[in-house]
């Protein structure tokens, strides 16, 4: 029976489906735990609010077909980059290699990486207007980051699980990674950039990003 219960409880992925069934059991089980474990921490609540606001704003812009496509992409950029910590993200992608970059190279790289992200995702944004996003949970990690878990409802990517990892700096919670079905953006770019930096150094990476960005611009 315990196994059954934990199987039921365990299935966060289909939590919605089972919530009703599990509720009675869960209340009984959780009743034994300290109350503190149940309540969302302040960090979790704050991080959750950031994701929820961002999602709402982006979806509102996506659905407003009165605005020309180009302008919609620009305003989404503004919303998203306001809530993403590009500096931390860029640094995490490079990991140890960050120190191999001079200050000027770091600045160039961050700027090119930002344009690269814009080009990679901007053109695809149009396809997400059919969907809504449900926030399914938030979890504080041991060292203070918070992972906000979401699920896409409707549209082409129905059921996809997307996690946002947020970190607080000077009291402000910002996104430092997006993990889609277990695939982390930071990890994926890190793997790709690592071999480039080790073969050609910082300049080669900046150069390659610049090339991609130029090609991306040409496509627009």
């Amino acid at each position, binding site marked *: 029976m315990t*196994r*059954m219960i*934990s*199987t*039921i*409880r*365990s*299935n*966060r*992925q*289909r*939590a*919605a*489906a*089972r919530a009703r069934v599990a509720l009675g059991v869960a209340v009984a089980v959780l009743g034994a735990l300290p109350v503190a474990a149940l309540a969302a921490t302040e960090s979790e609540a704050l991080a959750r609010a950031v994701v929820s606001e961002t999602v709402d704003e982006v979806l509102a812009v996506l659905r407003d077909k009165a605005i020309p496509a180009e302008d919609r992409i620009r305003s989404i950029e503004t919303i998203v980059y306001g809530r993403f910590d590009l500096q*931390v993200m860029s*640094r*995490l992608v490079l*990991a*140890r290699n*960050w*120190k191999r970059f001079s200050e000027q190279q770091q600045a160039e790289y961050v700027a090119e990486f930002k344009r*690269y992200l814009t*080009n*990679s995702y901007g*053109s*695809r944004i149009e*396809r997400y207007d059919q969907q809504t996003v449900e926030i399914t949970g938030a979890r504080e*990690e*041991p*060292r203070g*980051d918070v*992972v906000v878990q979401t699920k896409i409802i409707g549209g*082409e990517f129905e*059921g996809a*699980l997307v996690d946002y*990892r947020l*970190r607080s700096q000077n009291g402000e919670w910002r996104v*430092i*990674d997006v993990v889609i*079905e*277990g*695939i*982390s953006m*930071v*990890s*994926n770019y*890190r*793997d*790709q*950039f690592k*071999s*480039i930096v080790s073969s050609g150094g910082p300049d080669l990476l900046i150069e*390659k*990003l610049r090339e*991609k960005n130029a*090609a*991306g611009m040409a*496509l627009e």
Partner: protein
Amino acid sequence: MGCWGELAARIGSAAAALSCALVAGAIAAPLAAADGEDPWEPMNRGIFRFNEGVDRTVVEPIAGVVDVVLPDPVERAIRRFFENSMFPVRFLNNLLQTKPVSAVEELARFTINTTIGVAGLFDPATHLGIEDTREDFGQTLGVWGVPPGPYLVLPLLGPSSPRDTVGLIADSAARVYTYFVPFYVSTSIGAGDLLNRRSLAIDDIAAERAAALDYYVAVRNAYRSYRENQVRDRGEGEEGDSEDREDQVDREDLYDSGETGDDSGAELELDSEGDSDDEDDLYYPE
């Protein structure tokens, strides 16, 4: 990935005996290799290039035609039909992973979708709150503690690992129609499914190819992360609370960024190994 798996299983059933021998040999040697390493990279890149060539010259053009001819809702209905026909695979693997609740849910899904959902073309079960479980034998082996082994790109079938290759072959044995139709029919069915899926993903793959700085590495990272996540069942694995915590510790390390020197020595301790495992320092490199 999924689409390749479909075809894989079909071909797998034809070549099961041969593959088993090959895989047994392939598994023995590299299981010692750490996850995340790619000891077969030169060979993998060669096969990847070949697969990409086949995709660009044959599969993608045909899928492009399919995409134009069939409206997306129809394509999605076809995909659902194939997914519904995969019920025995998910059902058995849920049982093998001792997830009786999920197995019963799969049974309910199959019953509802095959009848009310018109042979699986529609998915009323999801609307009733019973979602599918996406289990396969590769994951079952993972749950049983078998490591994936090194990254492995299979000819035509795409990204895999020794463990998932064995899974693919085992799953093909669980398909109903493997036993009732001649192999060329099941192969055509598989090809139809593959083309349909490829067609649904046509824009995503094109965008990904165009955007990646190293498409091979991007796909490798995505495949391994995705499979690892599936085995861990992101939350489904709560049964091992301990497992969950282990994972959290991993992720912790992933996000540490002590490289600017403004972080305390605590993070440095975590990664004294230098260039060890990516997973360990994604968020807290150094």
